[in-house]
């Protein structure tokens, strides 16, 4: 189905705020009337399928708030390879972070106004943080034991807010958590929250039954908040939504935006898409000034590049995909089987077939995207077992696991036939192709293999979590925060959960543990480690210690192979320079932000 790679894109957006966008100068036929700066045409990578009925609400997944355009965060994360605390200004013009991450003071743009003319104030920020509590977020979690949660929000003056971290259980992700918050106008959202919200919150952050009740009350607000939307768009971003139809959304420049003078386009047209092939069509027609991360087949790529003005921009995207094992199923509990399979999979070929433009074959399984791995691990990366294609080695490993070969086909130790079944969500056609390629490779090598698809991604995830699959594709290496990177391998899905600040391990099949790995791994050259605890540690440690932990985890992942890392995504974007200029170049950090951010920073200019 056509949701294919796009669905991955949207996850990427949510997961790591990777994103995209480029720009183009909008010299296009300006029928709507925005003469001056032209119409800038793009798609919102986070929102396949525009919904005319969606509310103006950034928390609502189908809401008509488009990040960087009419929806603003406090600041925009750079998603730096290793440092999560780098940002571009958003609602906040600047910020002071306490050296120990214990607090952050935000300074808002002094002359920033909402599109309805009201000033953007510190109260708006505080109100928005209150809303964030109802939705649950890292920095604004109700759970008193949550790591990296805020303990206090203080309006210092009209344009200054100070947020303090609860240092009982500090995390390096605190700042990032604060900055990621959306800001909405309090005056337009009146009545959504009860007047005594902050008192309730105070109670909720405590202990005991009363706190429990208060937490319940606050979370009960979640749906109300999620469903709310002001009758018309009130934006603090560079644009405000003018109108929509099922095919497109039209935004016009917000004259009150603090940097309005430098905003290039007068209008932004966001096109609807429900499948990748649509984006391809827009691109080959030269319609899009920017398309955020989009996977394309090779031939389509040729066609796109051939269109006048179209250019490809590539950057870092902190995400990779791996073939994950359910180790509670035989024979995948045996590390030799996993290693043997790793030796049979030709990752280069898989990438060539599945995602030639959107990924690079994983160097090896380290748990980290190769680019970030270079930064974190340096030379250690090369010391890891590369798992090159080597049927002989695979045979060795299989034999070590007690598998037998009969008539050229591998069978289980007990002589029963062995069939590798890889589950894939049907809509992700790159994954389908990849899985198909892998099964072909395995079958050629004498390992019977098949692909089974699941109708859609939600179902896939739930069945995966229920432990119904032997093997499945799994997104991993979600940077830049190191905890997030390894949380995918040694987090909840593998049994480790942080409860009340403590790491606890659940048995396979319990509490979402479907990977079913061992609680400790004997890592060559390191010794027995508990990877889950190491991962949790990444939250609090910093600097060299962090590097050391990551080194251990990389080795553990490399030897233990809970997943076979297949490829690292490449942030492949398209820009068209016929109408606009000033797009970010290859490898720019801005490639991981929506193009609305480029515009609000004043980068894009109409082509002269």
């Amino acid at each position, binding site marked *: 189905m056509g949701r294919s790679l796009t669905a991955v894109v949207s996850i990427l957006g*949510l*997961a790591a705020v990777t994103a995209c966008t480029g720009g183009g100068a909008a010299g296009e036929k300006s029928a709507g009337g925005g003469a001056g700066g032209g119409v800038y045409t793009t798609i919102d990578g986070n929102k396949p399928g525009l*919904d005319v*009925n969606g509310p103006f609400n950034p928390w609502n997944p189908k809401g008509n708030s488009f990040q960087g355009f009419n929806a603003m965060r406090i600041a925009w994360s750079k998603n730096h390879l290793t440092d999560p605390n780098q940002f571009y200004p958003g609602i906040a013009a600047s910020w002071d972070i306490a050296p120990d991450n214990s607090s952050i003071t935000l300074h808002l743009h002094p002359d920033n106004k909402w599109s309805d003319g009201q000033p953007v104030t510190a109260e708006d920020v505080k109100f928005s943080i209150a809303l964030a509590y109802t*939705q*649950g977020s890292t920095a604004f979690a109700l*759970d008193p034991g949550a790591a990296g949660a805020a303990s206090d929000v203080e309006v210092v003056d009209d344009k200054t807010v100070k947020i303090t971290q609860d240092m009982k259980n500090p995390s390096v992700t605190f700042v990032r958590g604060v900055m990621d918050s959306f800001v909405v106008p309090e005056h337009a959202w009146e009545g959504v929250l009860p007047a005594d919200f902050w008192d309730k919150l105070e109670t909720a952050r405590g202990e005991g039954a009363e706190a429990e009740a208060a937490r319940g009350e606050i979370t009960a607000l979640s749906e109300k908040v*999620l*469903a709310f939307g002001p009758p018309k768009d009130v934006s603090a971003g560079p644009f405000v939504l003018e109108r929509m139809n099922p095919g497109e959304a039209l935004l016009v420049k917000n004259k009150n935006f603090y940097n309005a003078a430098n905003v290039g386009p007068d209008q932004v047209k966001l096109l609807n898409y429900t499948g990748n092939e649509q984006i391809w069509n827009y691109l080959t027609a030269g319609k899009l000034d920017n398309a955020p991360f989009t996977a394309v087949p090779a031939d389509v790529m040729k066609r796109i590049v051939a269109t006048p003005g179209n250019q490809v921009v590539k950057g870092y995207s902190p995400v990779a995909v791996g073939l994950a094992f359910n180790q509670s199923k035989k024979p995948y509990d045996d590390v030799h089987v996993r290693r043997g399979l790793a030796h049979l999979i030709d990752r280069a070929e898989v990438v060539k077939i599945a995602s030639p433009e959107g990924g690079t074959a994983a160097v090896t399984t380290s748990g980290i995207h190769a680019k970030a791995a270079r930064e974190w691990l340096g030379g250690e990366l090369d010391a890891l077992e590369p798992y090159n294609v080597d049927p002989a080695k695979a045979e060795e490993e299989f034999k070590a696991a007690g598998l037998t070969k009969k008539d050229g086909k591998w069978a289980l130790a007990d002589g029963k036939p062995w069939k590798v079944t890889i589950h894939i969500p049907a809509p992700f056609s790159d994954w389908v192709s990849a899985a198909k390629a892998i099964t072909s490779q395995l079958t050629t090598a004498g390992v019977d293999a098949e692909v089974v698809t699941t109708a859609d991604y939600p179902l896939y995830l739930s069945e995966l979590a229920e432990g119904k699959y032997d093997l499945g594709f799994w997104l991993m290496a979600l940077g830049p925060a190191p905890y997030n990177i390894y949380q995918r391998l040694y987090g909840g899905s593998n049994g480790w959960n942080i409860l009340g600040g403590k790491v606890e391990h659940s048995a396979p099949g319990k509490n979402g543990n479907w990977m079913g790995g061992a609680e400790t791994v004997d890592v060559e050259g390191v010794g027995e480690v508990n990877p889950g605890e190491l991962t949790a540690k990444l939250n609090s440690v910093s600097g060299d210690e962090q590097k050391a932990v990551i080194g251990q985890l990389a080795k553990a992942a490399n030897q233990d192979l809970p997943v076979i890392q297949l490829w690292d995504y490449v942030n492949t974007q398209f820009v068209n320079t016929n109408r606009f200029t000033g797009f970010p170049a290859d490898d720019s950090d801005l490639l991981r932000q929506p193009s609305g951010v480029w515009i609000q920073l004043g980068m894009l200019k109409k082509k002269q």
Partner: protein
Amino acid sequence: MALHRSRARAVAWRLAGHLARGFVMILVVTTISFLIIRNVPGNPLAARYEKLVEQGMAPDAAARAVEVLYGFMPQGSLWDQYVGYMSGLARFDLGESLMVPGSPVSDVLLSATKWTVLPVLAGTLLSFLVGVVMGVYAAIKRSGVLGDMLAISGSLLHGVPQYVLALLLGAIFTTLIPILPAGGTADILYEPGFDAAYIGSLIEHATLPVLTYALAGYGGWILAMKSSVVTVLGDDFILAAELRGMKRSIIFRYVARNAILPLFTILALSLGLLFGGSIFIERIFNYPGLGLMLIDSINNRDYALMGGAFLLITVAIIVANIVADLLYTVIDPRVRGEGETA
């Protein structure tokens, strides 16, 4: 006078009977959709949890956030849920969409319906007109090679599934000779309204879906009309009219009117059926109608929307059935006459 009154009464009774049957049918369909929907595995909440965790939210916080959404789903026994669901339906309350939180399902459906109804109507009427005319031609030329070709091409078009036609048209007009837009309803730059530019854009975007509907329907009409005309041509009264020296034009009118009569009921029925049959075409051309909505709701596990869409599609068919029958009653004096004797 009395005749007319008794006719009207007969039609009213007929309508009442239909409505009663339609009501039972809707009851059954809603029950089925309720049962199906309540048994769907893999819920959207798990997917949401996954997303939240990926966002970096602590798993327990994510679990709590999701639990909030669970409250959204009615708890309680299956029967309670059923009663709640049905009483909601009675108030035309189809629930709230999960995909578009905060939007009543009815609103979401309504906005999608027009994008299904307009192209379906246009395509069907187009195919009806062309098909009927060609059907007459095929009937007249039935013993010739041309008639054979028309009939076979009609059967083929009638037999081939919609998606094959949609894909072929798509391949031709968007890949080989890219002259038509591949999706959407209209260019946003044109302000919706009654002006040439907007309507032109609407038409341009609707061309491929409408063409597919038309082509898919055409085969059926040509076949139906051909066989209908052949039947009528064999009727005694046609020969009788000829032997009474009636003009060809009048005889042609006799043939056409008698032959087309049964087709009107099929037309009404097919309009109803096309609500459900639009899934492929809307999917392939990304046209935001009911079919695409149904697929989206399924992929998003949006139970309420899914049930609503399914219900709407079924109701369309039931209504079409009723309309077809009443239409038949109104236009065919033979059926109309039945009321008299009753």
